[in-house]
Every structure is written in structure tokens, then in C-alpha cells.
């Protein structure tokens, strides 16, 4: 009996471990299922081991461009083995082209995806990849802390200086003519929509398009209709870490927290001040309180939901709306399974104080130990992959291949927000997008048109210690969302005192 029990224990342990390993293993092809719609998973067939590179890359000239450039570079954000096969094949093709054109350059794929918290120790320990992609909130901090390489000479040699937008020279420079990075693409905050839930709530117009909210008041009301009719959250709001503060600043701008009521300002004496208690800020925070305690439209896990989770909540139909930008459209769709024709991107709702939308973006920066030749090799790679504003037949082929890969993995193929001052490049990007478009552009036109017709004013992030500011605001939002009796003004006063003290210690000394 004892022996039997012992054997049973061993077998059960092995089975549990096997189940654990199986549960942690990646799905064979996550793009084939649509969990949000509750559809049955199609019968799984073993995927082919490899996939051919996009045929659009077939015409690229593989003659040697520079036999003397010698460097080994590690490239962050390389798609991992679990990425969609089309994306992997695309990057492998880029690597083959690099190998042919620059035989003495070795590309080392690195799966590092930037966050400040992980980059800093890697940079200090000398293990950061040569190329990484930070958000626009961080370049100035990284430059001031000597955690990135000066690549001015490589950028000049590449002829990119004249195509830099002035705002980006400021963002990626040290104010003394030195550059430490370059823009990848911009984003503008808007509202992601799950059309299925709008449909279930009867919020569809005669053309079959979702009746999306155009103002913050409408957002609350329509969210409430969705909540009451479908039982699902109207809005997912990530009030954890720094995400809540990040999105809240945009809401506050639309309540009028700009100009004389700006959230942060520098006075004539050069000192920085923060104003969390202005009437627009208080109104904006009251609005957050109302979303939770009056309209009750927020997803219940707000204070533990991070940015990645918001997209899966929207994509899997747990919430109908999410404040997010054009650069994140592949998350609810390709990553979380929402079909591209059930997804819409619309402008950030206006408020009583205006219609602003946060204009941020992602850049390319270089680890502090990157040499001039390594920077040059990386710029050649970025040119091949279509990230730099040059137009040749090869680059157009790369852009087309990129659009094909995007469509194959189930992400919407949409026009990018221009990051370079080169009209020919922008026009070519749009032409390629139109050619491979896989969406009904009526679901996106309002968003893109609002950026150019003046309906929405673009605004950069708050300038001083932005992440810290977001953290203080997120704490305040958490208090408002978790305590019905929390005093809004008192909460904002407390957050203001903390952040002003920080500014006084760090900046106003």
C-alpha cells in the first residue's frame, strides 16, 4: 500500500509538472483564434517550421554596399520565436539583406523590449542591446543620466539632420547640438472601440458604424448604456503604476488644464511649479470619480490593470472602450484576437475646456557603449527596414513587405503618424498603406482627419519629470476610484505637495 501511494505521488507530481509546462508553452499560432468572440478554436494543424520571406523583398539588390564597415551590433525588439511567423520571416529577410550588403556587419537579435526599469540596470551593467526603443517620455532622462550614446556623427554622415523635425531635435538632443537618438514613429491618443459591444448595446448608426462618443460626457453616458445593456464595462482605465496619470493628463487638458491652468509651468525665476488644484484639474478628477461611482462604467480591476492588460480586456470583450493610440492597434487585434473589422479607432473625446490629444511616440536610441561604426551599421539596418526617410525601390519593397506581414498577423494596416520632415517619404508610406489596407477606413477616418482638420489639438507630454508626475496622479486616481468618500481637492493637494517637494529637491535647488 505504502509503495502504491509513493508511486502514485511520483506519477501525480510528474503529471502536474507536465501540465504546468504545457500551460506555460506558447500557443502554436495565437492568431488563428478569436477568444473575444467566444468562437470555437479551429482544428490545430502543425505549423510549418519556416515561412518564406515576403515576396515583395525579392527584388532588392543584394550587391555589396560597403565591404569595409565592420561591426557587431545587438538589436533590441527583435521578434521572439513565439512571434507570428510572418513577422519573424520579415526580420530574417532584413538580416539576410544586411549580410549581403554589409558582409562584415553581424546582427545579433535581442528580444529586449524597453522599459525604463529594465533598461537602466542593463545599461549600467553593459548588457543593454545597442539599439532599443524608448517612449518619448524618457530620452531626456536617459541623456541627462549618461545612459545613451552620442550618435551625432553617424546621423550627420547619414544625411538625416535636415529631415529631423525641430521638436525631435529638442527631444533627442542635449541642447548643445549633440544628438542621442532618432524618432521611429509618433502616436496620438484616441479611443479604441470594440464594435461587438457597441452593437450589442444598440449603439450603431444607419451605416452600420459605431456611434462613438465625441465628448467626455458622451463617453460616460454611452459607457453607462453599454454597462446596463451588456453587463460589460464601458471603459477600461489602467489606474496602476504610471499609466493612470499618463491618460489623466489628457483628460485634464480637455477640461482646460492648459495655458494659465497648465499642470506644470516654469516661472520667470526659472523655477518649476505644479498645479494639481486648478479648477480644471479638480473637475477632471471629479469626472474620474463620477465614472467610477456615478456612471459605474469602469472595468473593475482598474487599479491593478497595466497597459498591456487594457488591450486584452478590450480585445476579449471585457470592456467596450480604451484610451489608446494608433501605435497600439495591433494589441487588441493581432495579439488579443479581436478581428480587424470589429475594431475602430476614434478621436480622444473633447471636454468642456477643449479637444486635445497627447502626441507622443517611440524613438530609437543607442546603448552608452555603442561606437560610431556600430551606430552606422544600425542606421543601415533601419534604412533597409524602412524606418528612415529615404525613398528607393528597395525601401518601398521593405515597406510593402512590412504591410503584408502586418495584415497576415491580423493587425490593422493604418497610416503612420509622420516622424520625419520628408513629404515624399510620408506620401509613399500612405500609398503603401492604401495598397495593403485590410480595414474599413470609415472606422478610422475620424481619427486621422481630426489630426489635420483642426478638430483636435496635438499636445506633447508634460515637460518635467513626467513619469514621476504620472505616478503621483495615478496614486490620486487610485484613491478616488477605491474610496467613494475620498475628497477630490484634498487628494489633489496631497499629490501636489509630494510632486512640488520632489521638483524643489531635484530641479529648483
Amino acid at each position, binding site marked *: 500500500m505504502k509503495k502504491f501511494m509513493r508511486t502514485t505521488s511520483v506519477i*501525480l507530481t510528474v503529471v502536474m509538472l507536465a501540465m504546468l509546462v504545457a500551460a506555460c508553452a506558447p500557443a502554436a499560432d495565437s492568431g488563428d483564434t478569436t477568444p473575444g468572440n467566444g468562437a470555437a478554436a479551429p482544428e490545430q494543424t502543425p505549423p510549418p517550421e519556416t515561412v518564406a520571406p515576403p515576396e515583395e523583398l525579392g527584388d532588392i539588390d543584394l550587391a555589396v554596399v560597403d565591404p569595409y564597415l565592420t561591426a557587431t551590433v545587438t538589436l533590441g525588439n527583435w521578434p521572439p520565436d513565439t512571434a507570428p511567423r510572418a513577422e519573424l520571416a520579415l526580420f530574417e529577410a532584413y538580416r539576410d539583406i544586411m549580410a549581403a550588403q554589409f558582409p562584415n556587419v553581424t546582427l545579433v537579435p535581442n528580444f529586449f523590449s524597453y522599459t525604463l526599469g529594465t533598461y537602466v540596470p542593463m545599461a549600467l551593467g553593459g548588457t543593454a542591446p545597442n539599439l532599443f526603443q524608448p517612449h518619448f517620455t524618457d530620452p531626456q532622462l536617459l541623456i541627462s543620466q549618461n545612459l545613451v550614446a552620442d550618435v551625432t556623427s553617424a546621423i550627420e554622415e547619414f544625411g538625416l539632420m535636415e529631415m529631423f523635425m525641430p521638436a525631435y531635435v529638442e527631444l533627442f538632443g542635449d541642447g548643445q547640438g549633440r544628438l542621442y537618438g532618432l524618432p521611429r514613429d509618433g502616436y496620438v491618443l484616441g479611443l479604441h472601440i470594440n464594435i461587438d459591444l457597441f452593437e450589442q448595446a444598440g449603439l450603431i448608426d444607419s451605416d452600420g458604424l459605431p456611434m462613438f462618443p465625441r465628448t467626455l460626457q458622451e463617453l460616460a453616458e454611452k459607457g453607462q448604456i453599454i454597462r446596463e445593456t451588456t453587463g460589460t464595462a464601458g471603459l477600461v482605465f489602467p489606474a496602476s503604476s504610471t499609466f493612470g496619470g499618463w491618460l489623466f493628463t489628457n483628460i485634464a487638458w480637455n477640461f482646460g488644464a492648459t495655458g494659465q491652468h497648465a499642470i506644470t509651468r516654469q516661472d520667470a525665476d526659472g523655477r518649476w511649479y505644479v498645479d494639481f488644484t486648478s479648477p480644471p484639474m479638480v473637475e477632471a478628477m471629479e469626472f474620474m470619480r463620477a465614472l467610477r461611482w456615478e456612471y459605474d462604467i469602469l472595468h473593475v*480591476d*482598474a487599479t491593478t490593470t*497595466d497597459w498591456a492588460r487594457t488591450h486584452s480586456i478590450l480585445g476579449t470583450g*471585457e470592456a467596450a472602450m480604451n484610451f489608446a493610440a494608433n501605435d497600439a492597434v495591433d494589441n487588441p487585434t493581432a495579439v488579443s484576437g479581436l478581428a480587424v473589422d470589429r475594431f475602430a479607432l476614434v478621436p480622444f473625446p473633447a471636454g468642456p475646456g477643449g479637444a486635445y490629444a497627447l502626441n507622443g511616440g517611440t524613438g530609437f536610441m543607442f546603448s552608452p557603449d555603442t561606437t560610431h561604426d556600430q551606430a552606422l551599421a544600425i542606421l543601415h539596418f533601419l534604412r533597409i527596414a524602412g524606418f528612415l526617410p529615404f525613398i528607393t525601390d528597395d525601401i518601398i519593397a521593405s515597406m510593402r513587405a512590412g504591410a503584408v506581414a502586418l495584415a497576415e498577423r491580423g493587425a490593422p494596416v493604418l497610416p503612420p503618424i509622420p516622424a520625419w520632415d520628408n513629404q515624399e517619404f510620408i506620401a509613399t508610406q500612405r500609398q503603401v498603406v492604401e495598397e495593403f489596407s485590410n480595414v474599413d477606413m470609415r472606422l478610422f477616418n475620424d481619427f486621422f482627419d481630426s489630426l489635420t482638420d483642426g478638430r483636435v489639438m496635438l499636445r506633447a507630454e508634460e515637460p518635467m519629470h513626467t513619469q514621476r508626475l504620472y505616478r503621483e496622479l495615478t496614486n490620486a486616481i487610485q484613491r478616488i*476610484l477605491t474610496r467613494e468618500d475620498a475628497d477630490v481637492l484634498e487628494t489633489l493637494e496631497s499629490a501636489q505637495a509630494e510632486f512640488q517637494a520632489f521638483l524643489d529637491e531635484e530641479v529648483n535647488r
Partner: protein
Amino acid sequence: MEKIHLKIDKIKYQGVSWLIMLPGIVLFSFFVWWPLLQSVRMSLYRTVNIQLVEFIWFDNYLTIFRRTEFIQALFNTLSYTMWSILIGFLIPIFLALIIGETVKARGLVRTAAYVPNILPGLAAIILWTAVFSAGETGVLNILLSHLGFDRQSYLTEEHLVIPLIVSVATWRGAGATALIYMAGLAGINPQLYEAATIDGAGIWKRLRYVTIPGIFNLGSTLLILQIIAIFQIMFEPMLLTAGGPNNASMSLMLLMWQYAFGGGTMEFGRASAVAVIIALILLVFTALYSIVNKRKVDWE
């Protein structure tokens, strides 16, 4: 002459001892003591990333003591400790007693108790995130709805968040601790139980007069070690709540990480100051542990 020989022998003996210890001392110096001293040094400087820019005496300490988030993190950490003693100290003892008393399938129960310990930490936290989700897909809420109760919020409640995080930590670690207690229980002389039974002692009296005194010293040691471990709690609150809501689950270690890496401010000097304060508090606990341990050795 004999004295000289004795002295040479002593030097030889001590020399060999030092030689044996040398690799350990070198490794300890390099990996433990040197970083420790550097951390203390860094806490006295203004920093630009990890470079020391200006000696500012105790400014970093004064600054963090002025911040409400530090005071809150300090109290939270004490709260973690208190909850850990309430929840995490007794459960492994009960578990050990239950496993010890189990007649059938003891190996299976023992294995089941230990399995959470071999789960990767991240996987365990993801699992518990799903359990504690306040939505209708939260595992705990599904169970409650089957029992006819309303949906509840868990990690979004300020007063619940620390006990819940401690429960998760206990779930992970209790099995391993229970095994240590089981070893302790196995060391109790069975004749003591026999004698107690002959004297008419029931199960509670046997527990009170034989079992508890038998594992008392082990229990005090493990209690101190548990306090030291829970004082350094970081990744559970980091992954479950990111320190929220409203800093209600922010621990000192998590705050230290935020100052250095996660908060977007790279305050390495202040992070070091927090580290030194944690070390000083733990030093007190460690001294306590040494006293308890010495008493145990003397007793044995």
C-alpha cells in the same frame, strides 16, 4: 624551545585555517561586503545614475523621511510583518501536524503541500491575479457566485491588499517550512508521547506539553527568519498591485526599486538610503535571531 615549537605549530594551524577560509572571504568581500559598503557610501552622495557627484552627508535620508510615501512604505512593511506572523507563522505548523498525523497518502499530501514552492514566482503571481480579479471572470468570484454571494473586490481594496499578498506568499512558502517543522516533529522522542498517553493526556495536552515545547526553539528561529524574509517582500506586491492602490501595498523594498529603476527618476542615492535603513532594521532582527539561536544551542 618547546614554547617556540608550540607557537610555530599554532601559527601553522591558524595559517591553514585562514587558507581554508580565504576563498570564502574573497568571495564574500567581493560579492557582499564591498557592495554593502558601496551602498552605504552611495547613500551619502548626490548621484547621476550610479556615479557619485557630490557628498551631501545625510541629505538623502532627510529627504526620504520627509516623503509620505516612505513613511507609508515603512508602516506597510511593518503591517506585512504583522500579517505574516498572523497568517504565515501558524499555517506551516498546522500543515506539519496534519501531514504528521496523516496515515494514508502521506507522501501525496506532503508533495501537494510542497508543489507551490517549485512553481516559478511569476507563474504563481499570474495565477493569483486571475484568482483575485474583481470581475466576473475572477476565480474567487466564480466560486462565491456558485455559493450565492455577490461579487467582491480584492486587490483594489486598501484594507485587504496586504493580508491577501501575505496569503499568496504564505501559499508559496508554507509547504517548505512545514517540511522543516516535520523534521523537528520527527526529532521528538516518541517515548514522551507514550508516557503522556499513559498519564492520561489527550491530544490537546500532548500537543501542549510535548509537541509545542519540542519545536519551540525551531519555531522561534523560523519566526525570526520569516520576519527577515517578509521585510524584504518585493516582487509579490510589484506584480500583483504595483504598490497600489494609493500606495497601500508599497513595501520598503519596492519603494527602493522604484527610486532606483522603476519610478522614472533614477534616485540611486535615495534608493541606497532606503536600502541602508532596511539593512539597519534587519540588523536588529538578525541580532535577535542570533540571541535566540545561541539560546537554542545552549539548550541543546
